[in-house]
């Protein structure tokens, strides 16, 4: 790759993105650019529109205006599945798992859909050695192999949260959107999730919504602060933590919530 002459295409560009639900403006002219390999955090008080923004980027919601550009290609009109096939994967704030299926089957499905193995209706699912092997690799890197044959619904919440991430990673994404990956996970287990994120290949661009400021400061190289559907400011963790406006609308509020 000749990086000196080719202009670097951002992994993700969000341009003037708008979404209103009736009179409520959940996303108001949002602009964010993520260079390839970025570790970008999205923070803001409850109801700021963080999850809405992720839903707009992934296509779960249709924007009222604006553009989403993935690796230089405009994808605003693509379906969720179409965007996923172009290298975008996400996790959900509330687990979205195949609860009755085993951990292995959950990750199997993700790989099977990515590789189109799931188009096969005249083969045995259990004999797709390549899919199974890769699924087990993902489980191994998240220390889930011992639970591979257990139905997901029988796992403790923290382990389920790992499966949530395993399904997304099994998409081999270029862009990974993490919606509060460690939410609801006991601190004794959250290090597993944070380690997994920290270990991600540096080619993968990551956008993470997170409330825990320690986590944000540890993982992110840039932070966007969202308030009431608008970008309040963007900067490095140092800049954001020194910003008085951010303190007043966000950090201060969190502190009160945290101690109250």
């Amino acid at each position, binding site marked *: 790759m000749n990086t000196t002459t080719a202009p670097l295409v951002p992994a993700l560009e969000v341009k003037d993105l708008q979404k209103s639900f009736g009179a409520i403006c959940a996303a108001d002219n949002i602009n964010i650019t993520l260079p390839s390999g970025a570790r970008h955090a999205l923070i803001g008080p409850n109801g700021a529109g963080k999850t809405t923004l992720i839903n707009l980027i*992934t296509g*779960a919601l249709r924007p009222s205006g604006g553009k989403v550009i993935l690796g230089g290609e405009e994808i605003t009109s693509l*379906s*969720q*599945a*179409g965007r*996923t*096939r172009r290298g975008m*994967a*996400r996790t*959900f704030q509330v687990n*979205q*798992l*195949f*609860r*009755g*299926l085993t951990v*292995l*089957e959950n990750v*199997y*499905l*993700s790989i*099977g*859909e*990515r590789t189109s*193995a*799931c*188009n*096969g*209706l*005249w*083969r*045995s*699912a*259990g*004999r*797709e*050695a390549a*899919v*199974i*092997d890769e699924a*087990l690799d993902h489980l*191994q890197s998240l220390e889930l*192999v*011992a639970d*591979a*044959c257990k139905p997901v619904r029988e796992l403790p919440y923290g382990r389920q949260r790992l499966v949530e991430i395993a*399904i997304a990673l*099994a*998409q081999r994404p270029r862009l990974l959107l993490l919606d509060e990956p460690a939410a609801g996970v006991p601190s004794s287990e959250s290090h597993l999730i944070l380690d997994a994120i920290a270990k991600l290949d540096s080619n993968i661009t990551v956008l993470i919504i997170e409330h825990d400021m320690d986590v944000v400061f540890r993982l992110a190289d840039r932070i966007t602060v969202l308030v009431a559907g608008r970008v309040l400011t963007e900067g490095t963790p140092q800049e954001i933590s020194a910003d008085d406006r951010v303190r007043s609308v966000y950090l201060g509020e969190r502190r009160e919530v945290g101690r109250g």
Partner: protein
Amino acid sequence: MDANKSSSISSTNAVARARAADLLARRDRYRIVEALPWIAAIAAYFAFPNQMVLGSQTLILILFALSLDLILGYAGIVTLGHAAYFGVGAYAAALLITDVGWSEPISGLVCAAVVSAIAGFLSGLILLRYRGLTLLVLTLSTTIMLQQLGNLFRDFTGGYDGIPNLNIAPLFGYFDYDLYGHTYYLYCLAVLLVSFCVMRRIVYSPFGQALVGIRENVARMHAIGSPVHWRLVVAYAISAGLAGIAGALFAQTNTLVTLGVFDFDQSAAVLMMLILGGAGWLYGAFVGAALYMVLQNELAKISPPFWQFGIGLLLVAVVLLTRRGAFARLAKIDQHLP
């Protein structure tokens, strides 16, 4: 010491990996108990030689319920119009005999399967864009419209009088049909066996796994790039094709087909059978349809209202008592509505 520890971790991992892969690979091995329904069916052939007409009808309904299981039990799509494809298959088989003059039964089944699968595919393209109550109403009204379409083209379909005296050629050009329905019974059993093996293969395929994924969490399926609509349309077409085979068998063995095949009762009955036996495990169709037919036969001997009341009571009991079974599954489907 560190090296020791990591090598013991990697060996436990290797064992766990092998075990997990093995469990998945073994999932679709045939188990000995699975021979039971077939042994029972053959035993019934010898034990109740005078009940072969009832027996054939039961086998046909098992196949019909089995076809519904693919979309209801596996993909989690609730429909009230499955009789549409049973009916299309029945009429395809009948018209092939009367209007084309082709009376070989097995090619008749294949033809019916193709026609009803195409009907399922085309209607599925539109119907499966919807879920829940909308889909219930749409499938219900599609079936009613088909019935009335049949009534409109009465020259062709014979209207509510139907098409009588369907004479099918002897099986393999050799086995003719006796008055007691022995040939029909074995014919139906063979067709059911083949259809079952096809269905079982699909259910345990990667495609079948994706259908279960759609049932378990359709939102996540979209998020992992699954072409959910296409998966459902394909499953719906296969299901319609199998229902069409059941309908064709029904027309061939009764040597008659009427617009009654499109009755709402048919769609409702097949749904009841599947719920009775349990959706989503292949054998629910066998248990449900057999139970339904035996009860219908035995209770109706006492008195017809007794049968209606009996089946109602049984359904209430099944639905209320097996919350983790059929009912839980139906309830769960609604959680996944967009």
